[in-house]
């Protein structure tokens, strides 16, 4: 089973068939990801992890994914310890590192860096974040986790709440969700609304969209609530920040109005937008989503390197 592309640069370059292949492959690895079974499927394979920017979850989950499948990793987490500090281009770094490994995971601050790397490399390149550009494995794991917990990816009422203006994750997820006939509820303060060009793209794809500032008004209708953090630094006026931040805190009280089948997701790290008291409720799926991150990446690595 092969994907239509050797490089994973952006979610939108993946076909629905590719997504289905990755998800079916990932589902096979749940027990291995939990450590209940062992695998040497990628024994002898080496994954290069080149992180020019800090990352915790993405880097650790890729490392966990390849190690659970019997492979290993090489790489760096800080560019100052690499040849980049000596002035080497990304292109040269890629052309060098590809001689040491079978695939490369790249996080880099510049938009388009993963595409450039894929042109330089003969081994598969997986984009783990290119500045304000794409982070396709995050979108894959979000969808996988929604599908796993709601048993479908179609015809859901999906609420995206928080910073919808700057959040790369919610932009990608909105596009991805629109492929599967879901209705989107965009919940944010006026100043952090989803960019107009994205709304118009989504409407062109006939996506049903409702924008609101009031989470309580739409909460009873939602199947999925995807929460993101509102960053203080996005506000020039601190009092404006204080005014909005509390209106989107998810706690047990607000969830009294929720439908029983509602499930809550979050790309993490969270600060205070979800009260820890929610963690123990049936609604909370954000730590299960972290686990999905490992199995989805196992599925992807298996298809690209197996």
């Amino acid at each position, binding site marked *: 089973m092969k994907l239509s592309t050797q490089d994973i640069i952006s979610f939108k370059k993946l076909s629905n068939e590719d997504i289905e292949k990755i998800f079916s492959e990932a589902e096979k690895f749940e027990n291995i990801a939990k450590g209940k079974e062992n695998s040497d499927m990628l024994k002898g394979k080496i994954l290069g992890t080149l992180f020019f920017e800090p990352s915790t979850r993405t880097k650790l989950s890729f490392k966990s994914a390849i190690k659970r499948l019997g492979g290993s990793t090489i790489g760096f987490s800080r560019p100052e310890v690499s040849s980049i500090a000596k002035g080497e*281009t*990304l292109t040269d770094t890629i052309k060098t590192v590809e001689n040491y490994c079978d695939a490369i995971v790249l996080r880099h601050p*510049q*938009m*388009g*860096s993963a*595409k*450039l790397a894929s042109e330089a490399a003969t081994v598969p390149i997986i984009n783990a974040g290119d500045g*304000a*550009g794409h982070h396709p494995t995050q979108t894959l794991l979000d969808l996988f986790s929604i599908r796993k917990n709601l048993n479908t990816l179609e015809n859901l009422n999906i609420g995206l709440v928080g910073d919808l203006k700057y959040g790369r994750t919610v932009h990608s997820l909105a596009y991805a969700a629109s492929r599967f006939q879901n209705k989107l509820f965009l919940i944010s303060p006026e100043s952090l609304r989803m960019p107009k060009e994205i709304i118009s793209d989504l409407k062109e794809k006939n996506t049903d969209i409702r924008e609101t500032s009031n989470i309580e008004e739409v909460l009873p209708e939602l199947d999925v609530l995807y929460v993101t953090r509102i960053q203080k630094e996005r506000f020039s006026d601190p009092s404006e920040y204080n005014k909005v931040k509390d209106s989107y805190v998810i706690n047990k009280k607000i969830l009294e109005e929720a439908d029983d089948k509602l499930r809550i997701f979050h790309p993490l790290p969270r600060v205070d937008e979800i009260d820890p008291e929610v963690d123990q409720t049936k609604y909370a799926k954000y730590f299960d989503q972290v686990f999905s991150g490992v199995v989805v990446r196992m599925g992807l690595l298996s298809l690209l390197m197996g």
Partner: protein
Amino acid sequence: MEESREKLRVRKIEAGTVIDHIPPGRALTVLEILRITPGTDDTVSVLMNVPSHNREEKDIVKIEDRELKEEEVNQIGLVAPTATINVIENYEVVEKKEVEIPEIIEGVVECSNPGCITNTSEPADLKFEVVSKKPIKLRCSYCERITEESELYKQFSGR
């Protein structure tokens, strides 16, 4: 009447290229694109803000003894999409070309997004998909951000 006034301004050229119907004020940008700078050996006439048949103003550039390359014509199209290129021999127009904006622009334009990898020292082949021809909008093949016509104008003027 207008025709004769124009003749008075600049005489016909014997051979070369006349770039007509340039949007007013953009003739100097067209010269930048053609790398016609101080010290040039080309004989060049530049007319700016002259009345056109439809009474709107236009710029005209006449370059003697030079025929434009296809790449140069395409670049002019990016800042002067209304321009026409007349090839002149023996004082007569022997060929009249409309500028044509291709579907893909390669190697000419720089991405307007400062966060794009192409704006670093990386050896990237600049490539843009033309998503709109009027007004011109180009999508960078690397960062996928849109570069607008006004940004192109600034880019070419700043060279």
